[in-house]
């Protein structure tokens, strides 16, 4: 882009510039005077216009957290950056600048209207996060690849697109292509797309679009499937029995066990392994099912507790609301009386009466709160006991089942050892006539090696089982203490908040009364 003002020094966005702009564009007239008195906080600014400022670099805008609309058109900006903190931005105008690539827009997830008109952009990309985009203007740029338009299919809300003035528009199929591939588009180059064009476009690119859609659907389905899987796993994790359904744990026992793999070549071992596996898996399945049932019980218990808690709180709240309502009715009447009383003595008497009422209200509200705290404490303790009991039984039962696993492992180990020693004896006596791989045969050089190998395999297995058990128990205990803690802290916070609220309200009433006093004296 050729600029007349190239000779002028580029401008920097500094505080002065921003202040000036904000004041100029802020509230006018009476409101403006008020605003001036107070000063305007950058945080409160909703829209900002910084056009024709010869700005080279976007900078120092981090204070404008709540900015909705930002206009930076007709500057000499070369790179998009410094916009990361403007998360609430809905409208961004960067037209008539010197931008070459789209970048730095990732945080602007609320953006609906984006203008990059008259820049030097040659490719549309890096806008994946702008899912709310509705209006996109990228005319007068250097986009030359028609297929780049397909990138815009990811914006489901996109209704208006301006591409005019790009090299790509010289392509004779440009219009048909865009309308066909962006089916939801209503306006192209600021013109309404008519039904005729849409039909023609559809007819022309029908098959390729079908293919595209098919692929997109497949992707979508895959994603959903994955999501479902993850959700399922999450559910299992919540019950602390993930990967216990099926042979996962069993496979895990043997995954790092090289010795076991070697021993599997011995005669009779595969069969032994097979029975071991079925038994082991069935116990795992037991643990898994039991875990799910227990998880359900725990959630039911927690839900029940929260339900009761909610009821108690809402009852208490209703009581408080009622009290305050009644008080306010009386109070308003009393204030009215005080305002209209003309004798100082009467006023004084009424004032003191009113003050008494207020303190009485404070007493009542605080009593309610104290009552509630006591009641809740009991209830919470009850809940704590129950939930700890529940977790305790769960852990005990799981430990029992795990012990069964260990027994199985021991049993298996003994059998394996027996077979191994038998084999060794046979080999020693050279009665063993089956083929064995060399490394396996190497194991059977002497008794110690064999026993060591079998023992190492056994140790690994036991360790893994122990680890799984430990993991489960720590997780469930953590959850238990976590929820108990949470209930306690929540209750504590609630109590603090309510006390604070009551105090605040009473203070406000007192203040009101005092101010009334002042006013009357002045009169």
């Amino acid at each position, binding site marked *: 882009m050729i600029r007349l003002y190239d000779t002028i020094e580029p401008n920097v966005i500094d505080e002065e510039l921003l202040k000036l702009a904000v004041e100029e564009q802020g509230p006018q007239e009476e*409101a403006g005077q*008020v605003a001036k008195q107070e000063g305007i906080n950058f945080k409160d600014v909703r829209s900002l216009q910084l056009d024709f400022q010869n700005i080279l670099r976007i900078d120092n805008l981090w204070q404008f957290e709540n900015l909705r609309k930002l206009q930076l058109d007709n500057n000499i900006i070369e790179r998009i950056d410094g916009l990361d903190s403007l998360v609430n931005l809905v409208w961004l105008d960067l037209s008539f600048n010197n931008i070459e690539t789209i970048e730095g827009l990732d945080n602007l997830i609320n953006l609906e209207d984006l203008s990059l008109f008259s820049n030097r952009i040659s490719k549309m990309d890096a806008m994946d996060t702008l899912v709310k985009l509705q209006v996109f203007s990228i005319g007068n740029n250097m986009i030359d690849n028609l297929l780049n338009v397909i990138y815009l299919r990811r914006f489901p809300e996109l209704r208006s697109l301006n591409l005019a003035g790009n090299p790509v528009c010289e392509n004779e199929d440009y219009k048909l292509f865009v309308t066909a591939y962006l089916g939801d588009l209503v306006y192209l180059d600021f013109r309404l797309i008519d039904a005729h064009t849409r039909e023609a476009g559809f007819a022309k690119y029908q098959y390729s679009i079908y293919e595209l859609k098919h692929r997109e659907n497949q992707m979508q389905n895959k994603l959903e499937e994955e999501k479902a899987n993850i959700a399922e796993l999450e559910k299992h994790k919540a019950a602390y029995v993930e990967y216990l359904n099926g042979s996962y744990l069993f496979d895990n026992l043997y995954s790092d066990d090289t010795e076991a793999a070697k021993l599997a070549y011995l005669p009779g071992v595969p069969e032994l392994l097979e029975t071991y596996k079925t038994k082991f898996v069935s116990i795992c399945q037991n643990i898994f099912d039991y875990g799910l049932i227990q998880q359900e019980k725990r959630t039911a218990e927690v839900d029940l507790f929260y339900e009761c*808690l909610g009821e108690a709180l809402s009852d208490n*709240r209703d009581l408080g609301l009622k009290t305050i309502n009644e008080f306010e009715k009386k109070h308003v009447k009393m204030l009215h009386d005080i305002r209209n009383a003309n004798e100082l003595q009467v006023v004084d008497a009424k004032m003191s009466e009113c003050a008494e009422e207020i303190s009485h209200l404070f007493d009542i509200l605080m009593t309610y709160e104290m009552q509630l705290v006591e009641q809740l404490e009991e209830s919470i303790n009850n809940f704590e006991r129950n939930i700890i009991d529940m977790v305790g039984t769960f852990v005990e039962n799981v430990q029992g089942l795990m012990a069964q696993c260990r027994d199985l492992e021991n049993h298996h180990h003994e059998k394996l050892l027996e077979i191994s020693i038998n084999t060794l004896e046979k080999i020693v006596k050279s009665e063993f006539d089956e083929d064995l791989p060399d490394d396996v045969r190497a194991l059977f050089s002497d008794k110690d090696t064999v026993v060591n190998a079998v023992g190492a395999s056994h140790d690994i297995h036991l360790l893994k089982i122990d680890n799984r058990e430990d993991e489960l128990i720590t997780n469930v205990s953590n959850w238990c203490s976590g929820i108990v803690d949470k209930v306690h802290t929540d209750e504590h916070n609630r109590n603090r908040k309510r006390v604070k609220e009551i105090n605040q309200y009473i203070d406000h009433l007192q203040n009101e009364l005092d101010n009334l006093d002042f006013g009357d004296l002045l009169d």
Partner: protein
Amino acid sequence: MEVLKEKVEEEEAAEREAEAEQAARKAAAEKEESILDRDDLIDLEQKLSEIEVHIPEVPSSIDTSALPESYKTNTAQEKQLLKVADNFAHQYSHLCPDREPLFLHPLNECDVPKFVSTTIRPTLMPYPELYNWDTCADFVSDFLTMVPLPSPIQLVRPEYLFSPTSVLKYQKGNCFDFSNLLCSMLIGSGYDAYCVSGYASQDICLMDLTREVCPLLRKPEEAASQKEKVVPKRYTIKPPKDLRSKFELAQKAKKEAEIAAQEEKKRKEEENKLLELDKPPPDPMHGLRIHAWVLVLCGKREVPESFFIDPFTAHSYGTTDEHFLGIESIWNHKNYWINMQDCWNGCKDLIFDLGDPVRWEFMLFGTDKPYLTMADQEEEEEAADEDDIEILDKEEDKNFDMPLSWVEQIYISAKDFESRCPQGRKVIQYKQCKLEKWAPYLNGNGLVTRLTIYENADCRKVVEVKEWYENREDFLEMRRVDKTTHLTTEYFKPGHFLALREHTYKTMAPETDRSMEFYYDTRVDGLEKRTETPNSMTEYYKDRADYLVYRHVDYGIRLKKFSLNSPDTNPRPMLKITERFDRNLSKLADDDVAERIFVVSDERIQLRYHCRDDYITTSKREFLKRNDVDNKGNKIIMTPDMCVTYEVEPREHTKKLLFQYEMMMNLKNEEKISKHQVWESELEVLEILKTREEEEDTHNLTVSIYDTTRNEKSKGQREALERQAQEEHMRQVEAELDYLAPFLVQLPPGEKLTRWQALRLKDECLNDFKQRLIDKANLIQTRFEKETQELQKKQQWYQENQVTMTLEDEESYLTYCSQAMFRIRILEQRLNRHKELAPQKYLALEEKLYKDPRLIEYLKVFV
């Protein structure tokens, strides 16, 4: 009948007992009567005189000439039936000599004895409204006027029972006529219904409803609210400890219970007193009054339990109701049963198993009622079979089906059905109220029902009047006038353009106490209710986009203005506008206004916000609109003390003056809008009142487009169509004029044509036609000649007088000439045409004659 004999002894014993009892009762009654003082006697006399006033309709007053033959004679089958019935009655009177004679074959309107079962004519009415028993009974009770029996306690000989068709025609009848008609209709629509002849209480027999509560006033029984038992959950908090003395509480409860018991006792006593008052005076003829009603047995048409219908009032009663005191006999269109059960306890102990020959003695054997199912039936099955066969053998000659009804099909015209009551009007006196009914469209203002409620039983002071309307163009459905508070309430059906639902008022003047309810879902502003008092107006809204639910306006006293004083130009000053809003969940509770009060007189605006979920106080804000000037003379725009705020949780931005200023500006705007809306509401009230008054004055009725008799437009159209059809028909008749008729007449009637005759007939016809054609040609010719002669004469005359003629005469001559020439030419054309067509016509006739169905067989040979 054998069963009857077997039964006799037992029966007689029972009868004797009953007799003794009755005698005892009679003695008691007599004793009582002797105790009766003068007043009671007078009362009795009065009652009796009332009863005796009605002289039964003599059949001669009914026009019997138009009735069909079956009404006037009996068929052989009917005669046989009468014989059977006589025989039956004979045996019955022999076996039960102390029972009343049976109501078996009364005389019909033509003085012909007819068996009661044949008088029932089961007919299914073409109106869907008459498909169910309750609507049928309502119709019968509305349609007929009740005529009391000639004697309330015994059947007068000769007895009369008219056919249902005559009853319908003359719209009056006694209880037998009522039951007969209703029974015919019920059987027709598939119910298992029977006419019952028996005894009932005085109220029922005389159709005295003054001790009944009007059905319109009966309150629907409130479904007992089921209190859900609250099961304390495991973590439900325990209630705070009660620190009061338990002993004191117990004492207190005891005392309260005592007081309550006393009050309850008092109340009961009063109730009993009232009940006593309500009770009818003792009836000397209790248990003897004859009545006829309808019994519907369970089974058919999904009737779960047998019940009685009183045809006079259309009320249904259980079979154990105390109003019904005994049953003599029952019948339907197929059979006749005598009740053999003891009725000492009214109908309470009766069992309606018509298959049980011990309880119900049937007259005709071929009943399709199942026999009583016995427990030991299986064992005796074979024996029973043999018995059956025996019985069948014996009774074969007697066993014949009930002949078909002699009555013509019952027909109710659409007009009669609509007008229901005789002359379309009916008045019923209920307990403490009077009910009047009219046929729709009978009253110009659409009034169909009026219920007048009185203060007490003597019906002097009116408490409330309710009027129901139908087919009103303004959709008015009901109007209720409370005479004690002078409040009028009008209820409207949906569809009025003002969406009015209910309107309660004292006067129609504006700015008075009134309340209007609306169909809020049809209104754009969602207004549900608006109540007014002289100095306030309250509006309730529903389902609005701005969540407004309530607006209340307080008015001050109108300032006096001397120039113009109409409400339009001088509105009442508004003192305070209160608006309440529902919670808008898209906003934070602290930003969502719950109540907004514009104190117009004080220039204050109060805001109260919604309460947060877990808080007990609500944010409040109060603005003082003071347009002061500071000591330098500058206008104060906004100062912190103009806005008093309490916030549940103080927030940063709300403290700012700018925020408060903008809010105040907004509120000022809103205030204007609210004021405008209030003003519009006032205008609307005026408009509604005006419209209502106009509508009340005109009270047009709407006519459904399907109502062919009332819809003027369609009526006109239909009549035009009918006329057209008739004309068309006439033309066709003319076209089909019989050309053979004059010749056939000459032949002797009733005889078959001979061939010769046929030939002659044909020839004569052809000759005649030929003559006619010639005559016609001659006629045309004579006319032609006459015309030409005249013309020639005129021409001569013209030539003679041409010289002396005036211009006018010449003119007239010329016009005459041209006209005459025209006529002559036409005649010439007609003659030519006739000559051309005559032979063709002749041939056509000949052919037609050959093909004529009457001649064809004779002429065929010669063709």
